[in-house]
């Protein structure tokens, strides 16, 4: 996209609350913005580095609880708690990445599922710290140097800024030497090693950076909903988030936003969709893997193929080869 369009898009985004003027819709957009960052972090880990992480919700939970505890129980200001939560989540991500640095593909997936389960059990049972089933309520709304983000519209600008900053940061990481190393590891970790890439270190880095973003989102979320609940960070939630990144296209950052938008907005439009959302996600996962493994906006994904059809140059290639194990 050219700069001109980017600026236009950003201007449009700034005008969304005054245009739609509906608290409920603004709220949905806010949630969409935050989940977008989670989907981006999943894309960084699964799409760019080929590490099938199925426990992202755990890191959201870590960020959320960390920030809630720091503000409610220790009285830290929002911005400090928010940043510390990101760092904390990133640190745990680095530790998990370090532990899994030599593991084969399957084990990382299992360890992330296990980690998600462990976090869930700890959130539920470590009552003195996490409040157990009751969770932590009355989490203060974001307040940066005296400015209160206490309405949906005010929060909207904070969420927009957060998404824009995260997107630019990830975009730059992915288009740098570091991002190329991630993709090299995904495509062929042996050839990557022979190119002088310290594969283990980069896997840890990838996991840590992704976890910083997931943790920050979790923290921001908890200050928005003002309540940390132990039931929000389940494996089902992780899978739903994973599907956001898959639907948009693994390896495409813009795709993550589209995938998130669809999966956040659809359940809000229809109650019955909400009931069937996990069935829908299941069917979507199978169908996409069989026919569109690169999602809507990925390389040779639905988008590119539609264009190819229109230009009459449909190729027969739809197989995405990722790193063999």
């Amino acid at each position, binding site marked *: 996209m050219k700069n001109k369009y980017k600026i236009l898009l950003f201007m449009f985004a700034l005008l969304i609350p005054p245009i739609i003027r509906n608290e409920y819709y603004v709220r949905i957009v806010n949630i969409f913005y935050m989940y977008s960052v989670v989907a981006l972090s999943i894309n960084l880990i699964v799409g760019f580095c*080929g590490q099938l992480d199925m426990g992202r919700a755990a890191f959201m939970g870590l960020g959320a609880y960390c920030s809630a505890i720091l503000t409610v129980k220790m009285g830290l200001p929002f911005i400090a708690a928010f940043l510390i939560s990101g760092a904390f989540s990133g640190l745990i991500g680095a530790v998990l990445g370090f532990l899994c640095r030599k593991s084969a593909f399957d084990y990382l997936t299992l360890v992330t599922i296990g980690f998600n*389960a462990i976090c869930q059990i700890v959130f539920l049972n470590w009552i003195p710290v996490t409040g157990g089933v009751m969770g932590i309520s009355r989490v203060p709304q974001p307040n940066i140097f005296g400015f209160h983000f206490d309405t949906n519209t005010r929060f909207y600008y904070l969420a927009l800024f957060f998404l824009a900053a995260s997107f630019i940061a990830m975009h730059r990481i992915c288009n740098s030497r570091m991002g190329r190393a991630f993709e090299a590891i995904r495509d062929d970790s*042996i050839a990557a090693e022979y190119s002088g890439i310290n594969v283990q270190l980069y896997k840890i880095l990838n996991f840590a950076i992704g976890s910083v973003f997931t943790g920050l989102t979790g923290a921001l979320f908890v200050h928005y909903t003002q309540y940390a609940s132990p039931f929000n960070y389940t494996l089902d939630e992780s899978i739903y988030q*994973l599907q956001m990144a898959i639907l948009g296209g693994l390896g495409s950052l813009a795709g993550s936003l589209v995938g998130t938008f669809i999966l956040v907005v659809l359940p809000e439009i229809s109650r019955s969709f909400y009931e069937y959302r*996990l069935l829908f*996600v*299941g069917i*979507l996962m199978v169908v996409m893997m069989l026919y569109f*493994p690169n999602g809507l906006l990925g390389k040779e994904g639905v988008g590119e193929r539609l264009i190819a059809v229109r230009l009459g140059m449909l190729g027969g290639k739809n197989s995405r080869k*990722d790193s063999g194990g």
Partner: protein
Amino acid sequence: MFLQHLINGLSIGSVYALITIGYNMVYGILELLNFAHGDVYALGCFVVLGLVTAGIHPIIAILGGVVSGYILNILVERFAYRSVRFSGRVTPTISAVGVAYIMRNAILKIWGPETYPMKLGFRGTQLHLGGIVVGTLQIYIFIAAISFMVIISLFLKKTKIGQGIIAISQSIPTAALLGVPVNRTISIVYGIGGALGVIGGILFCAYYDTIFVGIGFALGTLKAWMAAIIGGVGSLKGAVIGAIMLGLIESMVAGYVSTLYKDALVWLILITFILIRPQGFFPSQIAEKI
């Protein structure tokens, strides 16, 4: 008390073993993390429940469940896995996760999230042996696990299909060159895995006298996966020993450490195990080739 925990661990471990055998065959042959394994056989178990509720004799109902597990898994393989078999690791795994969610939500739509009593009529009696209680059912389960392991290993060694399965697990292209019908053989492996899963699932339900949707993933796929990793991926012996060890670990942790954190501790033990001995106790001997 220790003996009691040991007995309980052994019998729950034997149930896990039946579930793991089928899982590990697929795992070893295709290196596919079959996320759907548990949810597929859970659907089979619910079929049994439906048949029993409809007044059909439990034995026939179980046979019906086993057959439906066999057919379901073959269908899943045919439609959700076959065309992505060689598309790396991420793609087929996600497809399998999708199948798991489809199965699970199918169960939820038909039977809901409730827990049902599983009345099969062979609850068995309890034997009191010097302070410890052993259910006759526990003994049957143990015997069933061991006999299925023997039957499967004989099947692999003595039959033509079994030899084909072994050939495929070494190398699919080579097996194809040798004239092994690859697709049909893999279908059969999945079918057997599904059928054994239903048997394991039914024994699980009989053991606890209940059935609910969670027997698929949390109590099925994940346990089978853990057991496979402890025992060694792709090894039949490893599947059984890993499953029994998993049962023992669970029952010991619950008995001596904490019931509240039982699952968390079992996960921690497993993660530690992965870090220390990633190849399991009975590693299959295939070196990575450049």
